[in-house]
């Protein structure tokens, strides 16, 4: 397959399949609760509807209100382009690209918080403050997990470290990254995507004033970020680089499906934790990643 065809395929997977994940999560939640639930493709319909609508712009807001979601979407898409998709590979890979990916995610978070503060709404400021303070702990866990993968595989590129086996610490690393996935994507133990109470929302309250295409960019960016973390988790645990291309691709798809169903089950069966317990949960994720690092260091990483 030509290089251009491969690039188009990757873009189609990242941007086209990402909105499927929230639909699957909602379907699992509805199924556990014994309801019929919204269609799996609901987010696609929402995105198409929002794209056709006009945006309402506050007279108080500077152009940053429009730039925020746009920059956030671009940063998440760039991070996704650098994340290898098993045998399909990434757009580019170089030594230390994982640091750039972590910074791109941080840039996306900054841009979302910036857009949230533009209208001067107190609720949105509160949501932005929570998002950023959760991220401080979640980022520490991600960096420690990446460090564990580096030590285990002895590589400094994302493709290199994700292709290798995660070794005996895979279970610890998987558990830690799953908690981070829930926190970074504002899923249930940290935030409730279905809540309608502005006082307790985290991610949803930050985008209350965005409408039309801006809201579509925010929703689509969130779906791509969810797919990004699911792909990272699956590749960190499974040694996809050692398997034939077809098997690896099938394993990656199956793994992402399992993670999505897992998120749906967590969301259906758990209640969100109180705000004062969130740091403990995120610290546990960090400790899990630290112990994965310890196992990689002690258990003969290369």
């Amino acid at each position: 397959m030509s290089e251009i065809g491969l690039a188009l395929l990757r873009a189609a997977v990242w941007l086209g399949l990402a909105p499927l994940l929230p639909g699957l999560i909602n379907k699992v939640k509805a199924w556990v609760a014994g309801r019929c639930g919204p269609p799996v493709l609901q987010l696609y319909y929402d995105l198409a509807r929002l794209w056709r609508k006009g945006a309402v712009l506050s007279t108080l807001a500077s152009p940053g209100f429009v730039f925020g979601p746009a920059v956030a979407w671009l940063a998440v898409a760039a991070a996704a382009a650098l994340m290898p998709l098993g045998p399909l590979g990434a757009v580019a890979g170089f030594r230390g690209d994982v640091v750039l990916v972590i910074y791109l995610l941080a840039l996306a978070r900054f841009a979302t918080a910036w857009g949230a503060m533009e209208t001067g709404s107190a609720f949105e400021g509160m949501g932005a403050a929570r998002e950023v303070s959760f991220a401080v702990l979640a980022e520490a866990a991600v960096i420690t997990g990446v460090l564990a993968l580096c030590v285990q595989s002895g590589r400094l590129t994302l493709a290199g470290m994700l292709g290798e086996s995660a070794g005996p610490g895979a279970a610890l690393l998987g558990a830690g990254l799953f908690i981070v996935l829930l926190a970074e994507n504002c899923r249930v133990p940290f935030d409730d995507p279905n809540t309608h109470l502005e006082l307790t929302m985290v991610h949803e309250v930050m985008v209350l004033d965005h409408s039309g295409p801006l809201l579509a960019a925010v929703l689509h960016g969130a779906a791509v970020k969810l797919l990004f973390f699911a792909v990272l988790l699956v590749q960190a645990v499974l040694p996809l680089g050692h398997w034939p291309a077809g098997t690896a691709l099938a394993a990656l798809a199956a793994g992402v499906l399992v993670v999505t169903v897992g998120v749906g089950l967590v969301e259906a069966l758990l209640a969100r934790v109180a705000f004062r317990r969130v740091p403990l949960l995120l610290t546990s994720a960090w400790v899990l990643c630290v112990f994965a690092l310890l196992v990689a260091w002690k258990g003969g990483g290369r």
Partner: protein
Amino acid sequence: MTGLLNVLVGVVMGLNLVALAGGRLPLLIRTVAVQGVVLGLMPLILEHGALDWKLAAVAVATVAGKGLLIPSLLLRALRVARIDREVEPLLGFVPSLLLGALGTLAAVGLTEFLPLRPEHAATLLVPGALASVLTGFILLAGRVKALSQVCGYLVLENGIYLFGLLLLGSTPLLVESGILLDVTVGVFVIGIIVDRIQRTFDSLDTRRLTVLRE
């Protein structure tokens, strides 16, 4: 054999951290119970030759004592004395978790420098023992309620038990059996004391005991 043993010691270390981060007394008691069962299974894995009946008896006694008897006594005390099931920490959950994790890391990292016998150097027994003793100390010093302090004692004793496993060949858990007996008696006594404290003060807060006067 060593691989399976190390996984079990790793589980014990993980349970230490669960005990430090858990916010409910029943969870704390059950964590310590599971830890006791895991520890009770270890002599069976360590023994390379034929299964000694004394060793099997010790393993059964450990599992029954630490996994069933003591936890059921503690849960009974919790129920009878109508104790609120929230753990009241003096030292917050996040600091205790971080201290415990730091202690475990230090124990694993520093064991390399200890003059161990070659057959013990490859196992995690010594770091596991050090980490459990440290966790026991944190639970003892950092929790208010008498029942969580009992759990701290139990974790501390589990650490001593892990040390005892190093001497399994020469003295088959002689010291350990004595300590286990002491702890069982201690739990009986503390069960009675907990009831008394609850009746006298309407609370299990050990801080109130310091204001006792003759």
